[in-house]
């Protein structure tokens, strides 16, 4: 035994200690991995020994290796051994290793429970301390459960050192084992008044963290914390408390008013930046919760914001901006300064702020400053960011803030001088957008674009990958399309046909060629009639004939095709010109017709013309042609048998490829024999240019790295001045034309819904208007307002789908019958953005119809009208399922006292409404009917009839279908989101009457259950805690309906409250029905 000890100790003398290991690793930089693997082998040997000192040394080294990223999980048991050593030296190392290496899935943690318990109750406070520290890192739910009591006892330890640690670790224990919170909380609260400030601040820490997770339950502690806040001078504690108040104020607005004063005091008195920042943040939260703005307080924020580090200041400002835009707007200069900051994240934050800050007044100024930054900015990514921001800022909410589009165009033109930007297409699309939509600006835009084309060499520059040349695409198109505004179309035409154009990307060349033709037409029209100019017209034709061959040779198919077409056309025109035939009109007719902007939603509004079925096959789908397929498919038919649509495709491409190859061969042979064919080679341009004559000898363009000011381009800056003048004048005019103005304003208000700018902006009338809503709809658009419905609405889709399925099943049973169908539908109206979801359970009446071929199929949508709580819109989709033509449909409903079909004036109460269309076979169309409903408390069934004439080839029969419309109470409910605090207030108000419902044997999971109620009955979940949820909905007449749904083993209990007991009872019955059906 003695010998063994001797051996162990001697070994230990020669062992590496941690320092040796570190030194060794530093000396083996080249083969570190190899060195470490030998070290690990040594450590494994050391761990096998009985000597605890050796083991501790080994574990210490392992901890170091673990940090370097080596896996040491295999030594977990040895770590536990070292932890359980009775000597503090080793215990300390053991716990350190454990805290670094163990995590929740480490299985040996189970073994440590008793050891830790022993250490916790050790008489040595440092033993207890290490155990607590270690535990804080690797506490698991099991450990937390087993040790919670021991730690709780330690909270009242005599030594503050232990108390402090015990209090802090309780937080971890609560997280892992929430049940411990209830018994431990009173003691934790006591610690808030502990004589030791360290323990006290630990307790504040823990309670504040707990409270931040779930502020509601800690509201009652607010007075205590308020006193602490006013008395404590420990900044760490203060920060915690202030943060807690930030979380509490949204729940208790009264608290906010009380807080403002002490917080402002702190803001002015404290010298610690971190505390200042926390105060400012909380003040912001308070101001947000107090909906009324307090200008004097926001002033104090502004003072403090200036001193805070830029980044955090900007962060805070973006919070203020959301609620108090005005107080931030005055810091515009400060924010613009931040654009000069070295740190990109600061600059980007500042840009974000600018986006929210612009108004009609300051837009020009801000953009001007940004333009300066664009010039200065180094680094293309940041410059690109600036560029996109400028465009974003200007174009936001439909150019809302732009008052002068000439200015905007010149800004865009200035932006084209940026070198190497990726956003050429962005600028181009803006140019096109503005030129097309703002009619008044076209003349100016065209002039600008013409100069741009003329100076194209400046844009294309020396690099081919230069993205800015995209702008030329827009320029060429605008010049061509609106060529009537051009002053000198001939010179623009000449500019567009320069040989250098051939170096541009293909899609731009194509636009060039096409628009050259448009310009040609304009030139002809301008010059014909004056006999002296006839020669000019002919020269123009000659110019085109000379230059177009360059494009005919283009490698780009689009360019080639267009060029050769136009070349032939021009040649023909030339012939006519030589015969003195007036051609201008006919050429102009080629490009006649004005282009109108179209709103993105316009297509939806065009009704499908009668007789057009978009789903019908134009040709019969190709049937499987076996003989061919089997010959070509090596894998056999079985694999592809089900993928009919797929396997037809590859077959065609195969053919194509073969043929293509053949054609290519033929073409190559042809080309080889053709002496005139110039193969694609870099010299091809030269070949052409040589043949053209002196005036087209390419002139070397000087590419200057410094962007030149393009002559004749007005600078955007001028507009700032002009705009000022204009506004002044406007102001003067305004007084005179007060009446007229008012009318204008009304119009503007309508066009710009949601204009949230300051009121003073109303004074600034834009110089140009964007034509959007008024003109961008096609003539035959349906005057419906359903364009707001969300096409991606999952409810809508799924419900349709489901109902259709039901329908099919029924169809099988009863072939001849009429179906009334309802599907969910979303509708938004302008006043509020609440979506109205209405669904209605269909009522199907099997009815024998005399004519066996007729089967109408209709779907129905019921929309409540929010503006008028008593109106319901039913849209019915009729589909003709039979082979005959259906016409003269009349829709009639037998009115009840409560619900009436709204009929046109002069019609009697029993007259039917004519459906305004006829239905050819297989066609469907939609009609809307408005019902006025007085009381929405009761569900309602309305009987109705649809009469129609079925017309077959030789005869026509009059037919009738009966149906029932079922207005359930649910369908009067609107899914309305509700915040939990508003919800709580609503329940507290006591205006609501309660009722309850119990459902047995519901086996579906709770979230399915909730989803079902939300979906079928238009509720929204306010809050969900475990197997308990509160839900809310509102009726079209503004009744509140609140549900509390609880579930416990297959029993669901619903407690409901509503200010209208009748409605509530019916809704509950309907919910019950929904669950009995499943």
């Amino acid at each position, binding site marked *: 035994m003695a010998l063994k000890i*001797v051996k162990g100790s001697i070994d230990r003398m020669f062992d590496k200690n941690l320092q040796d290991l*570190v030194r060794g690793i530093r000396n083996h930089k080249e083969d570190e991995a190899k060195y470490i693997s030998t070290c690990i082998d040594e450590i494994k040997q050391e761990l096998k020994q009985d000597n605890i000192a050796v083991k501790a040394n080994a574990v210490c080294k392992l901890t170091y290796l673990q940090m370097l990223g080596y896996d040491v999980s295999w030594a977990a048991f040895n770590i536990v051994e070292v932890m359980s050593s009775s000597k503090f030296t080793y215990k300390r190392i053991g716990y350190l290793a454990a805290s670094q290496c163990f*995590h929740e899935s480490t299985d040996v943690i189970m073994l440590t429970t008793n050891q830790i318990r022993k250490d916790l109750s050790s008489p040595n406070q440092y033993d207890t301390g290490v155990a607590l520290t270690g535990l804080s890192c690797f506490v698991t739910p099991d450990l937390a459960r087993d040790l919670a009591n021991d730690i709780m006892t330690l909270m009242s330890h005599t030594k503050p050192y232990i108390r402090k640690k015990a209090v802090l670790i309780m937080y971890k224990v609560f997280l892992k084992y929430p049940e411990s919170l209830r018994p431990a909380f009173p003691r934790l609260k006591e610690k808030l008044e502990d004589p030791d400030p360290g323990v006290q601040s630990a307790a504040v820490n823990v309670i504040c963290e707990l409270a931040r997770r*779930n502020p509601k339950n800690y509201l009652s502690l607010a007075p205590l914390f308020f006193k602490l806040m006013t008395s404590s001078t420990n900044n760490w504690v203060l920060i915690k408390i202030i943060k807690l108040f930030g979380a509490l104020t949204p729940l208790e607005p009264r608290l906010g008013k009380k807080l403002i004063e002490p917080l402002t005091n702190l803001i002015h008195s404290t010298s610690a930046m971190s505390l200042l920042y926390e105060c400012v943040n909380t003040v912001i939260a308070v101001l947000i919760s107090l909906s009324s703005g307090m200008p004097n307080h926001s002033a104090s924020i502004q003072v403090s914001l200036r001193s805070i580090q830029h*980044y955090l200041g900007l962060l805070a400002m973006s919070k203020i901006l959301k609620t108090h835009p005005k107080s931030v707007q005055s810091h515009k200069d400060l924010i613009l300064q931040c654009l000069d900051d*070295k740190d990109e994240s600061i600059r980007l934050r500042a840009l974000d702020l600018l986006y929210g800050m612009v108004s009609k007044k300051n837009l020009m100024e801000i953009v001007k400053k940004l333009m300066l930054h664009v010039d200065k900015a180094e680094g293309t990514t940041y410059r690109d960011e600036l560029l996109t921001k400028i465009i974003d800022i200007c174009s936001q909410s439909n150019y809302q803030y732009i008052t002068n589009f000439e200015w905007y165009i010149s800004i865009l033109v200035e932006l084209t001088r940026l070198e190497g930007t990726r956003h050429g297409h962005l600028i181009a699309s803006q140019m096109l957008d503005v030129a097309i939509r703002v009619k008044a600006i076209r003349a100016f835009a065209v002039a600008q674009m013409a100069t741009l084309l003329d100076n194209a060499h400046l844009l294309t520059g020396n690099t081919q990958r230069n993205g800015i040349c995209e702008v030329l695409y827009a320029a060429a198109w605008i010049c061509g399309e609106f060529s009537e505004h051009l002053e000198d179309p001939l010179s623009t035409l000449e500019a567009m046909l320069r040989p250098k154009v051939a170096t541009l990307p293909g899609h731009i060349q194509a636009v060039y060629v096409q628009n050259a033709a448009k310009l040609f037409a304009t030139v002809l029209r301008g010059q014909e009639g004056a006999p002296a100019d006839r020669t000019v017209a002919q020269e123009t034709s000659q110019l085109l004939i000379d230059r177009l061959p360059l494009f005919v040779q283009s490698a780009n198919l689009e360019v080639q095709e267009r060029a050769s077409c136009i070349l032939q056309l021009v040649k023909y025109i030339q012939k006519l010109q030589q015969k003195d035939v007036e051609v201008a009109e006919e050429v102009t007719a080629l490009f006649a017709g004005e282009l109108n902007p179209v709103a993105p939603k316009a297509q939806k509004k065009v009704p499908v013309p009668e007789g057009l079925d978009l789903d019908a096959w134009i040709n019969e789908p190709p049937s499987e042609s076996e003989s061919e397929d089997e010959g070509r498919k090596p894998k056999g038919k079985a694999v592809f048998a089900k993928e009919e649509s797929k396997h037809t495709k590859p077959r065609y491409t195969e053919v194509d490829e073969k043929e293509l190859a053949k054609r290519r061969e033929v073409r190559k042979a042809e080309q080889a024999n053709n002496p005139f064919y110039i193969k694609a080679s870099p010299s091809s341009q030269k070949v052409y240019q040589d043949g053209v004559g002196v005036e087209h000898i390419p002139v070397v363009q000087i590419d200057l790295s410094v962007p030149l000011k393009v002559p004749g381009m007005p600078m955007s800056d001028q507009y700032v001045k002009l705009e000022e003048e204009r506004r002044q004048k406007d102001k003067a005019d305004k007084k005179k034309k007060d009446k007229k103005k008012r009318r204008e304003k009304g119009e503007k208000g309508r066009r710009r819904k949601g204009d949230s700018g300051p009121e003073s902006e109303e004074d600034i009338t834009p110089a140009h208007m964007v034509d959007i809503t008024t003109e961008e709809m096609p003539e035959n658009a349906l005057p419906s307002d359903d364009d707001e419905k969300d096409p991606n609405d999952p409810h809508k889709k799924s419900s349709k789908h489901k109902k259709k399925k039901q329908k099919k099943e029924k169809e099988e049973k009863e072939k001849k019958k009429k179906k009334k169908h309802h599907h969910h539908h979303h509708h938004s109206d302008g006043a509020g953005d609440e979506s109205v979801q209405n669904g209605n359970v269909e009522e199907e009446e099997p009815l024998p119809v005399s004519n066996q071929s007729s089967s109408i199929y209709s779907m129905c949508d019921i929309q409540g009208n929010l503006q008028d709580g008593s109106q319901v819109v039913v849209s019915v989709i009729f589909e003709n399922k039979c082979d005959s033509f259906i016409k003269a449909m009349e829709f009639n409903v037998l009115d009840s006292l409560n619900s009436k079909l709204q009929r046109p004036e002069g019609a009697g109460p029993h007259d039917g409404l004519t459906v305004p269309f006829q239905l050819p076979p297989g066609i469907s169309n939609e009609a809307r009917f408005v019902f006025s409903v007085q009381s929405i408390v009761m569900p309602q069934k309305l009987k109705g009839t649809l009469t129609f004439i079925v017309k077959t080839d030789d005869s026509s029969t009059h037919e009738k279908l009966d149906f029932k419309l079922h207005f359930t109470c649910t369908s009067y409910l609107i899914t309305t989101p509700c915040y939990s605090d508003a919800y709580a207030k609503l329940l507290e108000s006591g205006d609501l009457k309660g009722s309850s419902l119990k459902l047995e044997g519901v086996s579906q999971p709770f979230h399915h259950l909730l989803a079902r109620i939300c979906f079928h009955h238009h509720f929204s979940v306010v809050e969900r805690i475990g197997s308990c949820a509160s839900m809310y909905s509102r009726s079209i007449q503004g009744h509140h309906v609140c549900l509390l749904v609880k579930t416990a083993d297959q029993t669901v209990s619903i407690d409901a409250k509503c200010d209208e007991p009748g409605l509530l009872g019916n809704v509950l019955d309907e919910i019950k029905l929904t669950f009995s059906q499943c």
Partner: protein
Amino acid sequence: MCQPIKKYLTASLPNAHPLHTYGSVRKRVKCSFIYTYIHIGSESTIKIKMQFMLLFSRQGKLRLQKWYVPLSDKERKKISRDLVQTILARKPKMCSFLEWRDLKIVYKRYASLYFCCAVEDQDNELITLEIIHRYVELLDKYFGSVCELDIIFNFEKAYFILDEFLLGGEAQETSKKNVLKAIEQADLLQEEAEAPRSVLEEIGLT
């Protein structure tokens, strides 16, 4: 690498003021708190104030790491690798805070060492910066003009100091004096245990 960090201590944080000035909070505060129902969110929402602390060199070598959230080794490695790269790529004049994934990263460079903390979204960046600074001050006091090598060769001591200062991601002791006193006493305990243990003694030859 041997450049003392202390030099940077005086220069850094111009506005930093000692935070631990304990006042008189002894007033008895009476509060009628009725314990009702306290709910801590589900497991997934649990977050700790400070998520982790990393110390790494300019070369990107990790010198110290402390994790206050349970993560697997693989995740830890990935996070620290990504983060070290991100921070080293930043220029010296740049802001000390950055948003990274859903965390806020607060870092500061002292001589050749980067001190980096990850905190939750709602936390105060400036106080985190002060925590870093306080830790550096503690190291400096303990080692006496601390440099990177001190931390490399005595990494366990650096951990012990950190553990006395922060517990479970929360600052447990705001007084420097108290932290150092605790460490010194624990060290004393360790030496007492070690001192009489010469080799000869161990085999019973004395």
